[in-house]
């Protein structure tokens, strides 16, 4: 019986380039902006919005702004934009707070040291990772403390009440981020533990800290805690805020990490176990590298939130960046209609730079760590 739809291929079809698409700017415009009447309408509306919004923003920030070197009179003039001269004049205050001016070299060394250590640490191909990490995580904090606090090697003692500005914002967020990683991971593992006591304690800790607003934590730490402590014992205000922020953040991080742990197929745990790897070795070599990689976006989200939340410490009287900006806005020497706004724009810009950098770095890291195993 012959089938009239029988087919036997005589020649294989060679692979070739896809057909040339309709390229060029005109085609792009048509495809992306004016594909249909409603698209065209949206495009026109969008452009009108930009035309309406951009000029005043430009005029405020640049066009009519008073640049560094300008005077307060110019800022007070009718129709003046941002008063950058004021930011320039009070810049040191925003960076160092009330740190004694003649001692600025100490925080400066800290800034330089921090940058010199963290940049190679973040570049995967940079050499001496082990020493670099040791210096950054162990030596750097100790040196920073003695440098800023003083009281040794003939350096004047500078109490933490005088630390401030970006310096304090960076200290709180760096300490918070670095300390909350190990605590958060341990809590996440504890929450998955088969041992009931460890599991219960982890759950209790996480749920307690997650259910309380950070402001409450900070208030408790700075006002309530001293009441419970025996008279005479004082714990530094900055230290209390550091502990509060760290524990708060680690509870959030724990839940993010738990998400990563749960996303791993059970086979990964089993394969590790079947090879005879102990719990901690399994966790360290197999589970965590994969789980953490899965949740990089979530972890960075936590870090960005933490970085911005540090501004809440201003409420318990710590002079972080936002608090210095806020208190400088009552500086009569520079009082002008745009003084406060300019300060907040500056603070927002500084926060944005750091958060955007974190976000971009994490995206890049995610792509780098991808070993192409999407299942």
């Amino acid at each position, binding site marked *: 019986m012959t089938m009239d739809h029988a087919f036997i291929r005589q020649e294989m079809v060679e692979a070739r380039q896809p057909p040339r698409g309709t390229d060029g700017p005109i085609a792009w415009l048509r495809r992306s902006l004016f594909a249909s009447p409603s698209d065209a309408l949206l495009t026109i509306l969008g452009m009108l919005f930009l035309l309406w919004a951009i000029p005043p923003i430009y005029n405020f920030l640049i066009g009519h702004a008073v640049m560094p070197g300008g005077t307060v009179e110019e800022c007070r003039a009718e129709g003046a934009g941002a008063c950058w001269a004021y930011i320039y004049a009070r810049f040191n205050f925003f960076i160092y707070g009330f740190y004694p001016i003649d001692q600025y070299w100490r925080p400066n060394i800290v800034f330089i040291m921090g940058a010199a250590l963290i940049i190679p640490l973040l570049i995967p191909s940079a050499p001496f990772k082990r020493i670099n990490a040791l210096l950054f995580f162990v030596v750097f904090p100790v040196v920073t403390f003695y440098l800023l606090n003083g009281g040794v090697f003939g350096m004047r003692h500078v109490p933490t009440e005088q630390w401030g500005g970006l310096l304090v914002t960076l200290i709180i967020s760096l300490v918070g981020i670095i300390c909350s990683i190990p605590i958060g991971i341990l809590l996440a593992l504890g929450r998955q533990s088969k041992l009931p006591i460890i599991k219960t304690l982890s759950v209790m800790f996480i749920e307690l800290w997650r259910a309380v607003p950070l402001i409450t934590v900070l208030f408790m730490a700075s006002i309530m805690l001293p009441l419970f402590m025996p008279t005479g014992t004082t714990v530094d205000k900055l230290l209390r805020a550091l502990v509060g922020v760290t524990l708060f953040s680690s509870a959030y991080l724990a839940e993010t990490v738990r998400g990563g742990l749960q996303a791993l*197929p059970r*086979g*990964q745990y*089993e*394969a*590790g*176990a*079947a*090879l*005879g*790897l*102990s719990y901690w*070795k399994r966790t360290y*070599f*197999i589970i965590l*590298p*994969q789980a953490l*990689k899965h949740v990089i976006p979530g972890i960075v989200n936590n870090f960005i939130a933490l970085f911005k939340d540090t501004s809440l410490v201003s409420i318990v009287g710590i002079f972080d960046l936002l608090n210095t900006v806020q208190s400088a806005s009552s500086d009569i020497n520079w009082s002008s209609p745009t003084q406060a706004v300019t300060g907040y724009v500056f603070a927002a810009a500084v926060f944005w730079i750091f958060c955007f950098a974190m976000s971009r770095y994490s995206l890049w890291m995610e792509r780098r*760590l991808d*070993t*192409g*195993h*999407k299942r």
Partner: protein
Amino acid sequence: MSQVSETTVERAIDTSQMTVSDTDVAIDVIGMHKWYGDFHVLRDINLRVMRGERIVIAGPSGSGKSTLIRCINRLEEHQEGQIIVNGTELTADLKRIDEVRREVGMVFQHFNLFPHLTILQNLTLAPIWVRGIPKAEAEATAMHYLERVKIPEQAHKFPGQLSGGQQQRVAIARSLCMQPKIMLFDEPTSALDPEMVKEVLEVMISLAEDGMTMICVTHEMGFARQVANRVIFMDQGQIIEQNDPETFFSNPQHERTKLFLSQILH
């Protein structure tokens, strides 16, 4: 079903007489029961595996065959009876569990390679961190086994870049790097494309020829016929029938076995 040459068959089936002494017993399962909650998954399992024996476990899905071999390296806990592997009885004692797992390799249906590590790192992780073998030596051993499974050129790739058959061969090599005394195979070819089944079975056959003690849960009846000393048929959590492959396939006794074989051999 894959075809393997007749000569391989003859070499593989080695029915030398074995004298029973304690040191010859690789695995001893005595009156073992297991429950998942209220569900009685394994019922009165008695199974003695001698060194060098090659056992194939067959049965319908849900019959408990995978659960049984997962009890042997304690990926699952049993609640009653005894499991003695290489003379060590499995209890809740973590030390004993580690001892058993060091000597028992396992190959999974879904390979379970570590996707964030290269093939070579997959193979050397356990030898370095469980056995404490120096890195260079572990890598040499790893390359030896990669050559044995015929993919040494893939050593520096990641698992995601390999085909299913290659991944499963890597998984076998990974187990072998620990120099196990016993190998467990949990449906090693079930997740593979048909064209890749043969390359994995060939590796398993060559292992059998070397005298490895093997327990394989598999639906590859051709493999069972060629390699096994014994075929065990399970249903509803119990061993229904066991026999040498010749008799098992040509003259099954139990009704359930007959039904099963009539369903899968056509």
